[in-house]
């Protein structure tokens, strides 16, 4: 094992590039009234930041806006981050 430890081998970690949510300029906000839970936002999210219950993980959401663009009910709005 000691030889193995010396190998330059990376370990799978969530947030390998840090909290990528800090890159975000616009935050997706789901309007629960309009949402019909089709799951397209979850399907198209490149970062898998939307889970099966359609909750957005804002720690890692980069704010690309694909979910808002693809939502057939227009239930997701991109809101500017105030910091």
């Amino acid at each position, binding site marked *: 094992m000691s030889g193995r430890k010396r190998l330059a081998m*990376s370990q799978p970690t969530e947030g390998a590039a840090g909290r990528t949510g800090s890159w975000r300029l616009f935050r997706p906000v789901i309007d629960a009234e309009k949402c019909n839970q089709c799951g397209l936002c979850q399907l198209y999210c490149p970062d898998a930041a939307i889970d099966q219950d359609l909750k957005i993980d804002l720690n890692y959401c980069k704010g690309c806006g*694909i979910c808002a*663009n693809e939502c057939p009910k227009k239930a997701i709005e991109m809101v500017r981050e105030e910091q």
Partner: protein
Amino acid sequence: MTEIPKEEYVLKGTTACAGCSASLSLRYVLKVAGPDTVLVIPASCSSVIQGTYPNTALHIPVYNIAFAAAAACASGMSNAFRELGKKTNVIVYAGDGGTLDIGIQSMSGAFERGTDFLYICYDNEEYGNTGMQRSGATPLGARTTTTPAGKTEEKKDIDAIIAAHNPPYMATACSAFPQDIFKKVKKALSIRGPTFIHILAPCPSGWHYPPGKTIEIGRLAVKTGMWLLYEREYGQVSISSPSKAAMKNPAPLEEFLAPQRRFAGIDPKTVEILKQRIAQNIKRLTKEESGVC
């Protein structure tokens, strides 16, 4: 959609740009492949999005290797696994630079040797990782950092080159249709021998469109006929359903070109040539499907 597994092998917090369709495609490739998989990645955006040592965002074994050696490495790996009696999937996930330009000799060799592996080329039509330079896959008229006035040559037809190797299975896909990618990767992995999938991966940073439009641009590429989805199984071509409708009645090409700044100020003559190419490709593919040529 229910059949797509819930497990994620691309963990949250990669260094991919916002709206990256290469990481979206990789998500679905790995969902099919599952944990018994080794990914071989030559230098490309995908070797960068893993993050920095000692962490990686990919939850499966990955071997990062030099540009020209990916398919050769996969060949050796695949042979070693089969010799040990293991059915581990060996997948090469290379960009268009690593497939069409720099990696073509090792890939051609692996296809000729009949290596049991899956070669996936995600095609963002430029050298995205090094700053959007021109590649063999850049379409005619597109501006890149090394072709500031628009590329004057046409895109290399890698699918025809692969088809000449006569592999048991090859397909084209687009990141805007994840279910289609899922289906094709599943089929490719179930077939023994060298298989190839060419995925069009729109790149917001290089094609210069708002990142939210990644899926929309991919869909427009298929709708306008700029990108044709088909499978070639033991020489028999079958056109995939999203392309079938588009081939009968393609949307105007301008709809695809207009949102991308890399096509800003494109010469009308160049657009005409692109349109002619689309018509030719559609004609050729229809003929191939019906077994005429």
